[in-house]
């Protein structure tokens, strides 16, 4: 890490798909990953499907609440919520809920490109002025940080895996588009995820 603390202004702008690959490469214990709508879960999908991945479709802003529900139901499984900046902006109150309940197994990652990339790149109202890690700290997530660069991201992921949370990591993104799109079949996605969570057993193959 550099000498100066990482802020919303000096954090390196990274490639979302590369971060997804780095994250999933470190998951060895069937950790749950909830991918927020649009390009966030598209790049999670593109990084390679895992049985413990859930890909949202609509319900913008609910990646953190869905992950919180998983974390409360299975306190011994690590759960990652991957959310876009525009999505989190729709449901900022959830950070207070997470801080109050303080689930030790939950980690929140915000993928902040400052724009609604999927609708044509319009800047969000937060672009340029809002510091999501500072918001998280203000909500009570005292250790919320920005990742300085890819090496710092890898260190922070490992920290999430090895220590109690809740954790919050802000990630500044470049403007590269997603690699591919998630298959939009919600009943199948839900069924596979439930099997991945051990919450459903079925003789139907898949």
């Amino acid at each position, binding site marked *: 890490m550099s000498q100066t603390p990482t802020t919303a202004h000096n954090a390196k702008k990274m490639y979302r798909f590369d971060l997804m690959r780095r994250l999933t490469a470190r998951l060895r214990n069937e950790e749950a990953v909830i991918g927020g709508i649009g390009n966030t879960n598209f790049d999670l999908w593109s990084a390679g499907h895992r049985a413990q991945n859930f890909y949202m479709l609509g*319900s913008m802003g609910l990646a953190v609440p869905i992950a919180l529900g998983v974390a409360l*139901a299975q306190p011994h499984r690590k759960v990652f919520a991957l959310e876009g900046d525009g999505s989190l902006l729709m449901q900022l109150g959830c950070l207070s809920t997470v801080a109050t309940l303080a689930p030790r197994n939950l980690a929140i990652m915000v993928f902040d490109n400052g724009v609604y990339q999927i609708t044509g790149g319009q800047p969000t109202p937060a672009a340029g002025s809002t510091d999501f890690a500072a918001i998280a700290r203000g909500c009570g997530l005292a250790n919320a940080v920005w990742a300085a660069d890819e090496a710092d991201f890898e260190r922070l992921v490992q920290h999430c895996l090895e220590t109690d949370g809740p954790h919050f990591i802000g990630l500044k993104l470049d403007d590269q588009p997603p690699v591919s799109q998630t298959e939009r079949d919600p009943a199948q996605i839900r069924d596979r995820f439930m099997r991945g969570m051990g919450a459903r057993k079925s003789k139907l193959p898949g």
Partner: protein
Amino acid sequence: MQSEAAAGSRAWHEIVLAVLKANDVRLVPYVPDNVLKPLINAVHADPFFTAFATAREEEAIGIVCGAWMAGTRGIVLMQTSGFATLANVLASLPCAFQIPALMMISERGTLGEFNIGQAMVWRTMRPVLEALGMEHHVISRLDECEFICDRTIKQAVMTQQPAALILSPLLTGGKVVNPPKA
């Protein structure tokens, strides 16, 4: 169905509490309401439940959907105006993904409502439930409370579909203020 005498010995919230336990519904996120207060107090007091307030009803729907997929049943408590914030997330999360998200809605806006805002938003509740094709039942009588709650929860779970239970002022007494003198 139970007799009125048996039902009459318990308040509506005591019946609801027992039905939630019998159906292993443990997680209770809520946005509070005055009518729901005795139920909210009861779930907080009972270690069987994990009960907490959320900032918005949408958030609570996300939480119970996540919990269901990981093996824990939950129910969201809210009032009519809170339900009115939910159409998008209900359509795209529990309806689209076939998740039995359970809701208990304290019905404001009718049968003596004093707040015109509540009365106006009340008009949207049943049309939205019907437009979404969501199973919903109104509980207006104490002697029907256990049956409706129990069967609605069981059907939701078995069919993997969301469902709403509406607590009528006929059941709860509603929230009442006396009109000002002219």
